Structure formats: C-alpha cells, structure tokens
C-alpha cells in the first residue's frame, strides 16, 4: 500500500456532478472531495442521491455533466473495471459473493491474468490484507457459511484486492450486529491509517458522527450541507445532530407533524410504557418447535406469553432462528410440535389466511422477496392476504372499484408515496413498500402483530413512523412481537426483551436500566444463564 499525503492534492475530486434519469434529477451539481486517510460520510435519506453518486464513482453510471479528478487529473470512469484500475473499490449493500464458492475462489474471480489460477499468490495476498485489516478470514470457508459480518470483511478484502486507494462502503452497517459495527469501525481505523480514502454511506446519524472525518449531506439530489473535520471535532454531538436533522429534512421537517418524534428517534429516546400485570394474555406459545429451511436454523421449544398492550422484543444475532419463529407464528411454516394460542384458542392447525383473519399478522422482513408481488399494482398488493374475500371479491370475481377505493384510503392513511394505486408496486422505494406491508397487516382489526426487522434499511423518517405505529398498536389494545437485530430499536420499543440464541429462547429481560447489558450477555451467552 502506498502512503498518500492527505493534505495536498485530494485523491478524488468530484466537480459539479449531474446525473438525470427520465423525469428526475438524481444528482444536481455535486462537489465532493475525498482525501486519503479520511472517512467521508455521505448522509441522506433513501432517494437523496447517494447511490447514484456511488454508481458514478464506481463506473456503473456516467454523469451527464461535471468532472471527476483523480489526483488532480480529469478522468473518465467508463466502466466498473476502469474504476477498479483507478483504485476505486466498492462494497455494495448486498453481498456479491457467490455462496457456493470458497472465500479464496470468490476473491480470485476478479483475477484476469492468464488461464491458471495463482492460488498460492492469492493465499498470500489474503493473508497480507487480513493482517492489514486486523481480521481473521478462513480462505477455505464457503461464502454461504460466513456470518454477515465476515461476509462483509471478505467483500472489503475483495474491494482492496487489486490495490484500491478509495474504498466505498454502501450502507455497510445495515446488516451488522452491534459487535459487527464495532469490528467494522476498527477495520476502518486501520484502513485510514494506511492512507485509504473511505466513502461511508449511511442514513444513520450517529454512525456518521462517530465514524466520519467529513460529513456530506445529500437531499433530493443536491449537496445541502457539509461538516468538516474541524467542525465535527469542536462542536458537541447534540449540536451537530440538531443541525444535521435540520439540513436533512429542511422544509419538510416543518410540515411532517412528527418532528418531535423525529428528534426523539434521533436522540434514541426510550418510551415509558406500562403493561398491567393482570392484562389478558393474547398470544401464547407452548413449546413451539419448527424446522429450519436449507442452511437456516429452526427453533426449538419456544414458550412465552404476550399480554394485551405489550410489546415483546426478540433480540439475537441474525440466523438464530428468527425467521422460523416468525413464520411458525404466522402459520407460514409448519410447526413440528408445540402450540400457538390466540386469546386462548389453539390456532396451530390454521393456515396463514385464517390466522390473518383472526387478527394474527406478520410483517415480514423479506419485503421484496415475499412481501409483495412486484408486477401487481399497489392496490392489489394491499389485499393479497384477502384474496377471494368479500367485499373485495364476489363469487370469485374481483370488485375493482371496492379494492381500489379501499386501497386509496389505506395509501392515504399509511402515507404511501405513490402516484396512484394502479402503479406497479415494484416501482416504489423500500420505505414505501414497507408502508404497504404495514397497511396490509395493520388494517382490518389487527390483534397480535409479529414485526420482523420492521425498520431494517429504512430512512430515519420512515423508521420513526414504523415505531410510532407499533406503539400505537400496543396502546390501542393490540400486542406486538418485534424481532430485530437492532438492540437499540428493541430497547426503545419493548416492555420485555427475550433473547433468541441457536433456535432457543435463552432468557427474558424486563426493559429498563441495565437491560442492554443483560441482553448483550444473554446474546453472547454462557449456557448457565439460560432460563
């Protein structure tokens, strides 16, 4: 790795970058300077233009106007390969590793010298890079067997593989556990020490503040704010936070009624809720056991009670049986034994549709994969769990006017941003798709709702809205199970937090002072502490 002087000529300089897509200006005259040894945070809501900017830097898109200077020289980044040659490596939000191949094989995929694979050389390179990053990577592990945090480390190694000087990380923390984030921060430290310039894309304020040397704020395609190293160092975090919120949401912050909520969200406030001891038990699991699917873990002997008005958090690192648990409650996965009781009535034998009708709902984490049918319009997607039911269908025939009328109401109620209910749902953003899922599950008298990673990948505003909806559900006489890998989220929302580890519930903690530590201990968990 060559050392770069971080002060003189910047490694990369973007000047007036503009990129339009049909009908929309994704990037509007953006200037950005990347220096070696610095972490430059790009902060902005979904759709602010972060991803387009990154696509331009990594050669996926070409700007309509503006210049890119690499070490002072105007350069055209014509393709992803060119970007790599220029030393710009990108770690995308979603894994690009081939699951069936080993780590080493994945890394060697990019090598294009000669026919024979230079395995010994690759091993050496991997060893050097791991040492540089301060991580341990098993070269022979299959990519699919790696935890998400490790996968990401491999992705970083892959981006550095051919000697990159600029490393772009697109929402790198969205899939990581708290420990994973801490580990990533260490890796970033070592990288900046060696002179790398790092672009860190996030919509989480606190990450930007704790990791960024520079912070650039994007909004609706424009660069609306920039905080320099000095500013970040001198001013207090609270002060910076307030300013960033104002810049990020600007005018909008005034007309969205939940600014207070937003601030609360940003400050990570905890809600004070109280569930009476004698509240009715609305959902009970008795020794619920459900198999895993493929390489994913199942759950064993899960038992808990959920009272009216209560929010139960399920904490745990990814892959500890979360999906099996959620699906078994929803009726989407067959439980091999054990029971699910809704208001004391056994619903274990009922399918998804019947449980849905009884008010047992499931907001899936796999929004795009199973939560919607992309080619169908927004309106129809809102009713996909009620296919064939009156008054939306009569004698098997769809009543379009009824469906669209009700859909329009739901779209308004849940603030789904769509031009019309007949728009294909696949054209909407992740946040709006989540609102569609929420509208579907939280309408028609919901009683118990399982939320699986309800705010994963969402921007601050939508996150705040989702959490407010969860609270509203509980306050309005419903109850919620919130499965999340984001401990902060659970601490903010839950009355109690249960910890799922290796397919079993290893303990339940009442939320309050010290809960975070307790949950953390259970998560890493000595078996002796298991309940």
């Amino acid at each position, binding site marked *: 790795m060559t050392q770069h002087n971080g002060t003189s000529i910047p490694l990369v300089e973007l000047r007036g970058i503009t990129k*339009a897509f049909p009908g929309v200006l994704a990037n509007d005259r953006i200037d950005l300077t990347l220096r070696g040894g610095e972490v430059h945070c790009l902060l902005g809501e979904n*759709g602010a233009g972060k991803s387009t900017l990154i696509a331009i830097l990594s050669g996926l898109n070409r700007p309509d106007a503006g210049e890119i200077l690499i070490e002072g020289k105007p350069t055209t980044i014509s393709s992803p390969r060119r970007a790599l040659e220029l030393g710009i490596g990108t770690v995308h939000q979603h894994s690009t590793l081939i699951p069936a191949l080993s780590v080493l094989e994945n890394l060697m995929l990019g090598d294009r010298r000669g026919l024979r694979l230079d395995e010994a050389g690759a091993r050496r390179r991997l060893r050097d890079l791991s040492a540089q990053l301060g991580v341990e990577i098993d070269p022979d592990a299959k990519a699919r067997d790696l935890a998400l945090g490790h996968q990401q480390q491999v992705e970083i190694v892959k981006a550095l593989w051919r000697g990159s000087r600029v490393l772009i990380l*697109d929402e790198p923390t969205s899939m990581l556990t708290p420990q994973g984030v801490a580990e990533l921060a260490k890796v970033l430290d070592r990288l900046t020490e060696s002179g790398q310039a790092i672009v860190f894309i996030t919509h989480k304020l606190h990450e930007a503040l704790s990791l960024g040397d520079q912070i650039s704020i994007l909004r609706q395609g424009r660069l609306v704010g920039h905080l320099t190293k000095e500013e970040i160092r001198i001013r207090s975090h609270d002060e910076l936070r307030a300013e960033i919120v104002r810049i990020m949401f600007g005018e909008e912050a005034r007309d969205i009624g939940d600014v207070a909520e937003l601030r609360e969200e940003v400050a990570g406030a905890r809600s004070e809720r109280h569930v009476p001891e004698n509240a009715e038990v609305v959902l009970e699991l008795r020794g619920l056991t459900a198999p895993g699917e493929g390489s994913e873990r199942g759950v064993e002997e899960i038992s808990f009670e959920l009272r009216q008005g209560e929010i139960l958090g399920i904490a745990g690192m990814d892959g500890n049986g979360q999906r099996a648990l959620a699906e078994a409650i929803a009726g989407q996965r067959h439980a091999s034994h054990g029971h699910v009781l809704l208001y004391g009535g056994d619903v274990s034998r009922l399918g998804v549709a019947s449980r849905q009708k009884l008010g047992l709902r499931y907001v899936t984490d796999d929004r795009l994969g199973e939560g919607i*049918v992309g080619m169908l319009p927004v309106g129809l997607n809102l009713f996909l769990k009620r296919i064939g039911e009156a008054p939306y269908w009569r004698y098997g025939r769809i009543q379009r006017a009824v469906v669209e009328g009700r859909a329009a109401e739901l779209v308004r109620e849940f603030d789904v941003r769509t031009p019309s209910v007949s728009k294909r749902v696949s054209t909407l953003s992740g946040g709006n798709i989540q609102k569609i899922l929420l509208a579907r599950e939280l309408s028609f008298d919901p009683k118990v709702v399982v939320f699986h990673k309800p705010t994963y990948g969402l921007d601050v505003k939508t996150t705040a809205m989702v959490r407010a909806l969860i609270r509203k559900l509980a306050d309005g006489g419903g109850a919620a199970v919130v499965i999340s890998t984001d401990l902060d989220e659970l601490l903010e929302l839950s009355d109690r937090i249960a910890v799922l580890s290796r397919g079993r519930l290893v303990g339940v903690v009442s939320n309050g002072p010290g809960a975070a530590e307790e949950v953390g201990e259970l998560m890493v968990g000595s078996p002796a502490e298991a309940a």
Partner: protein
Amino acid sequence: MTETTTTTTATGRASVAALPRRPARSLRAERILDVIIRSIVPVVLALVAGGVLLLALGRNPLTFYGNIWTGGVAAGAWQNSAIRMAPFLLIAAGLTLIFRANIWNLGYNGQFLLAAALVSGYAPGLTNHVPAWLAFALLFLLAGAAGAIWTIVPAVLKARYGTNEIITTLMMSFIGVDLASLLIKGPFHDPTTPLPQTAVIPLDKMLPPIPGTRIHIGLLIAFAAIFVVHYMLTRTSWGLRLQIVGANPRAARHFGINLPRLILTSFLASGFLVGLAATADIVGLWGYIRTGWDPAYGDTIIPFVFLARLNALAVVPFIAFFSVLSTGGDLAAQQAGLPTDVLYVLVGLILLFMTVIEYLGRRRELGQSYLPQGLRQALHLRRAVA
C-alpha cells in the same frame, strides 16, 4: 416489462438546463406500444427476411405471399384457415393458463391424442344412439376428462413432492401417445377395414357448421374457451392466485395460497382444454383417427403462446396468422415448387427475430440491470415520484 428507460448518453458537457424531461406518457399507451414492438415487429421482419430468402432461391416473394393470401384468405379460403384455428386456440388456452403459474404442462401431445382416440372410438356409436347435442356435449366432456386425467400423475407428484413437471408431463405424453395407438388398434379398431383406424363418423353426425359458413361450431367453443381463460386470469381470485404463484412462489407461501390445490386445479383445467381440442378436431374436421397420426398442434403453437406473452386474447391474432400461413402456404409452396418446409423457415424466422427484439429491448435497460438492487430501487423511486 418496466417502462422504457432510455437515459441520455453521457456527453459530459451537457448543461444542466438542457436536461431532457420526457413527457409523461400514459402507462397504458406505453404498454400497448411495447406489445406492438415486441410482437408485430418480429413477424414483419420475418416476412421481409423470408422474402429475401425466396429471392435468393429465385422465386418471387410477392407471388409467394400473394399465393398464401389466395390460398389462406381470399374467396372463402379463410374458412379453411378458421377451421384450422379451432384446436390451436383450445390448446393455446390450456397452455396459457398453466404457463401463467410458471408450471410447464408439456404433455399436451399425449393428452390430445388420448382424448382424440377416445372420442374417435365412442363418437360413431354415441352419435347414433343419443340426440346430437347430447352426443356432442358428452364427447367434449369425455375428451376434456381424458386430457385432465392424464395430467393427474404429474400434478400430484409436483404438488406432493415437488417433482419437476417438465419431465413427468413429457413421460406421460409418450405413454399417452402409445396408449392412443393401442386403443385404435384394439378396442376402437374399425372391423370393416384392415387399416389401423377407427370407424368414420358419418358426415351428417359431425359438428354442425356455423350458419352461413363451412366452419364447424368447434371454433365458437374455442373462442369461448379463450375468453373464459382470459376472464379467469384477469378477474377472478383463482386467476390472481395463479399469477402470484407464477410470479413469486415465496410470496404465494407468505400470502397463504394453497399451492398443492392450485397446482392440481391448474393442471386439470389445462388438460381439460387440451382435451377439448381433440373433440373439436375429430368431430369437427377429421371424423376418425388412425395410428401414427400425431399433428403435434401444441408444439406448433407454443411459440405463439410465448409471443403473445401468455395473454389469452393476444394469442388469437398470432394463431389466425399462422393458420392462414399454413393453409395458404401449402398452395404457395406447391406453386413455387418448394417443399412446405419453407413455411417452417418463416416460423423459425419469427422466433429468431422475436429473440433479437427481446435482446435489444433488454439492452436498452442494460445499465439498469447491472445496478445493485438498492440503487435500482432508488431510481425507481424517483421515476415513481416524477
């Protein structure tokens, strides 16, 4: 298909003010345009390329296409083409329906021939003993049932064990074809002839023509089937479930759709429609069946089912076109002194151009399909807002 996404080529120097803003065209108009580009253009290109080929062979393409017109459309010849359409349409309806669910019933030949053998075997006796309308109704039901029953094994295997239906339907098809042959040589053999064939249905016992034409009423039934399938797919809860299963099986599970039941019902419906084609063809046109006769209608029309993008209504013009081509083409090929294979060259060219157009259509979005999902979503959001 998503909307067209022709982005401006990067000039690097375009001024911000000059950024193009495409007028918001209605989604419907765009979709119709898309359908025209993707379906009509390949046909036109194939006719042009076929013309060049004919020129190279020293024939006048205009004369050739003119003869197709004479033999397939002009002066009442269109009625022959229309008669040919009936089994095509029924099979197309059956295939469109099940393909929409992403289930591949490729056993249509066996389903068709087995139904045809049963209809040929029972029709002469049945038409003699019961009123004509009842006989026809029974024969259609018999054929439909035969086609449907022949899908049960693949359907159950798929519903229960997830067995690949492409293989099982093909295997069942072979068995069906041979079983039909056995039936014709055995129980249904016409004793008055040494040829391996069934007794011929008397002309006055065949399906009656539509008044004022020579076209048998089987064509009306075929059109009815097309409309029913289209209605089922677009308006009913069953059709919606079918499409969800086809588009996203994981979502189907999430929405609590009973997958086994849907697989079974769509297979039965598909086989039923394929079976109906046999009655229309045997009782409407041929009057008997003999061993070795396998028109493989399904193989012929499958390209058109796809060309119509699995839309039941859109397949009609394609099948009409092909019927004219094959009816008139016999004459045209004969007069040009060419084998009728030349017609299949034309069909092949249509498929070729269809693929090319599809490829070009994708390419326009090539930049898009390379984008990571998050980015694509962001772009989609902006298009949605615009």
